[in-house]
């Protein structure tokens, strides 16, 4: 992991469950793995002042986000004995009920995969320059804020 190979994490639009299935299936040849931990973000139909969110439109400062993600990835691999880690974040429009984030970690024993997955999700939300614009059914919008 020491050479500076920046992996892309961004995908256009929603993440399809069949893509998640393919990702999982690819790991069947990695027979040193005993546990996978997956986090999926799904766009919630929040109601604000009687208006419903119909989609979130994601934008990012992509270069900076990928560099930051690379740094997080290296930290996480140093900290946990992981076999693999895969991260996908949507850009563009993702409708309510669709998947916008897919974090996938694997390790020989369950604990590192579980802990690393949670830490990646927290750090990604706190540190990556990505913005979600909540689009309402009436055409108005508001900017999402992470808690």
């Amino acid at each position, binding site marked *: 992991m020491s050479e500076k190979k920046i992996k892309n994490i961004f995908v256009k639009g929603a993440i399809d469950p069949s893509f998640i299935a393919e990702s999982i299936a690819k790991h069947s040849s990695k027979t040193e793995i005993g546990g996978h931990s997956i986090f999926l*973000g799904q766009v919630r139909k929040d109601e604000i002042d009687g208006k419903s969110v119909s989609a979130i439109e*994601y*934008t*990012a*400062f992509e*270069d*900076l*986000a990928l*560099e*930051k993600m690379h740094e997080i990835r290296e930290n996480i691999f140093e900290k946990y004995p992981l076999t693999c880690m895969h991260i996908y*974040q949507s850009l563009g429009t993702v409708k309510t009920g669709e998947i*916008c*984030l897919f974090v996938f970690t694997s390790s020989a024993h369950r604990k590192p995969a579980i802990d690393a997955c949670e830490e990646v*999700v927290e750090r*990604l*939300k*706190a*540190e*990556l*320059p*990505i*913005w*979600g*614009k909540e689009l309402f059914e009436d055409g108005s919008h508001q*900017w*999402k*804020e*992470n808690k």
Partner: protein
Amino acid sequence: MEIELLSFGKIAEFITVKRLMLDGISDTDGLKKHLEDKFPQLSEMKYKLAVDKRIIQENTILQNKAIIAIMPPFSGG
């Protein structure tokens, strides 16, 4: 000195200028004051600057042609 501006999220709705000529401003503290005077909405919100794709935590000297990103709180994931 001339800088390039990248604005994101909510901030991109009111800071649309892409280039800025700065006179008598040499660091990011000076730039912040300048931007907040020019765009009062900015002074009412939290934001971070990145200089040449590095997020800065403290006052930083600006070079000519610097690329400054103005970023509201992140909300990815």
